[in-house]
């Protein structure tokens, strides 16, 4: 029996009868961008209604119009290099440094923990229980140790983003299955070769899961650090705006915080797609385009 590569044909168009059969629910027949847009508009409408009817004081809950206006002002301030641009730049630096340090330390130590017996038996239980602690509670400690400058925020971001990376990396080191490990043993593979050619690639899906969590957590860490430790970042601007009841500005600034988080997350997700083309989750996407 010989196979021909042509047998691996791509997806084939469905017949109309098949298409009808598979599109049972009305929601499946609506393009996704339409349903997403409609739901978004509906939520804006509810927000507008609540603000307009003043169920809540307009000072406490500005409507969509004021918020978008403020967002526009904020954007102008940023583009013209005003104090919000400075805050955005400071917070971005804190988040990126926090993420990079957490990713590096978490990866290196995670490999050591997952690869050594001592790590697996003695260090791992501590990591798991430490991971369960509410890590934001440590923020005042870092402010006391590292002062009110940028450093305490970077440390906070690193600290909070570090755990998902180290825990997932260590778990990923155990992802290779027994038979494949046996195969490497039968090939007289050195520990380093097994690590580089089998264990690390097998761990990548876990490592990326950790990095994606870390991308989100590093923003949380930086903002919490700024709430407690002052400075000139977006967190401090948010805190000040809320104190002066400028809720519309709080919302606008949160949008920009979200942009930082989304960009970082998107970057990690992009790298994951490039590197994990062989993995189940990606394969499903390749084959799932029907």
């Amino acid at each position, binding site marked *: *029996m*010989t*196979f*021909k*590569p042509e047998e*691996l044909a791509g997806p084939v168009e469905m017949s109309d009868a098949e298409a009808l059969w598979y599109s049972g629910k009305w929601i499946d027949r609506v393009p996704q961008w339409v349903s997403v847009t409609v739901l978004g508009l509906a939520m804006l409408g509810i927000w507008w209604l609540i603000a307009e009817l003043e169920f809540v004081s307009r000072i406490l809950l500005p409507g969509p119009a004021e918020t978008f206006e403020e967002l526009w002002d904020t954007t102008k301030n940023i583009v013209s290099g005003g104090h919000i641009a400075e805050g955005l730049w400071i917070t971005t630096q804190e988040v990126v440094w926090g993420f990079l340090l957490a990713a590096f330390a978490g990866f290196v130590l995670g490999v050591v923990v997952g690869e050594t017996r001592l790590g697996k038996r003695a260090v791992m239980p501590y990591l798991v229980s430490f991971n369960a602690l509410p890590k934001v509670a440590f923020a005042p400690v870092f402010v006391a140790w590292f002062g009110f400058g940028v450093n305490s925020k970077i440390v906070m971001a690193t600290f909070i983003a570090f755990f998902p990376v180290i825990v997932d990396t260590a778990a990923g080191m155990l992802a290779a*299955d027994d*038979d*494949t490990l*046996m*195969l*490497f*043993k*039968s*090939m*007289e*593979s050195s520990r380093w*070769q097994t690590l580089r*050619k*089998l264990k690390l*690639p097998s761990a990548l899906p876990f490592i990326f899961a950790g990095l994606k969590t870390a991308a989100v957590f590093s923003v949380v860490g930086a903002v919490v650090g700024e709430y407690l430790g002052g400075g000139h970042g977006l967190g401090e601007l948010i805190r000040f705006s809320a104190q002066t009841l400028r809720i519309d500005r709080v919302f606008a600034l949160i949008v920009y915080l979200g942009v930082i988080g989304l960009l970082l997350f998107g970057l990690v997700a992009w790298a994951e797609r490039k590197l994990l*083309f*062989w*993995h*189940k989750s990606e*394969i499903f996407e390749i084959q799932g385009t029907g």
Partner: protein
Amino acid sequence: MIESTDSVDRAGQQPRPVNDEVVRITGLSKTFHKRGLNALDDVDMTLRHGTFTSVIGPSGCGKSTLLKIMAGLIPASSGEILLNGVEVTGPRQDIGIMFQQPTLLPWRTSLENVLLPIEIRSGSAAAQERSADALQLLELVGLGGFDQVRPFELSGGMAQRVAICRMLVTGPAILLLDEPFGALDELTREYMNVELQRICRERDATSFMVTHAIPEAVFLADQVFVMSARPGRIATIVDVDLPRPRTLDMMTTPEFGALVRRVRHELNMGIGEGGEE
């Protein structure tokens, strides 16, 4: 490893291996001390060049343990394994092995997977130089043109064909097959048995296969070793003298049926013997 006086005596009694003897096992025993399990007890066997040997036995009879000891993956408690006259003390390049799962690396192409053993032992440059051989092997197993395809695009049977190539690429003296087609569906499995026979004949390979499918054991083998459990030992050897190449049609002949019945009978005897637990 300390050799028992028993195996030394044996070595004294028996003549040195004849030319066509690839594997000689004498007085092989294995005890798993933690569990106090006597997995293998005093196993002797000889595998001759170009022959196919099937090992069949109830689960827990130590057949997989035997294969792993032969592969140098776990140590024996006592006894000796000679491969081409040299004692097996650990993994070796002249031992080829294949498992129930294809164990292909999903991030590598078929070709890169086939070349993996060369790459591990001699480096990437050496592997590169052997690509032509690897491509030829892929051609041999019917996967010509699939060298740049990754495992997720292959069916189960195709993936096992790639695993066969990876096993053959170092030119091993013995092929150790641990239930190689156990995870495949029945039809694919039969196809793969015919294919394996063809490949083994073309390469003039010496093969040793662990299985728990009686028809498969008989179909492929020149001799079937029937094992009994607790302690694991070879209860009987059934010689299969059906002509080669064997075809799937032969599986319906009375001769084939008689051999299957005989193996099943011996298996039942073995289970009855060791089944007090």
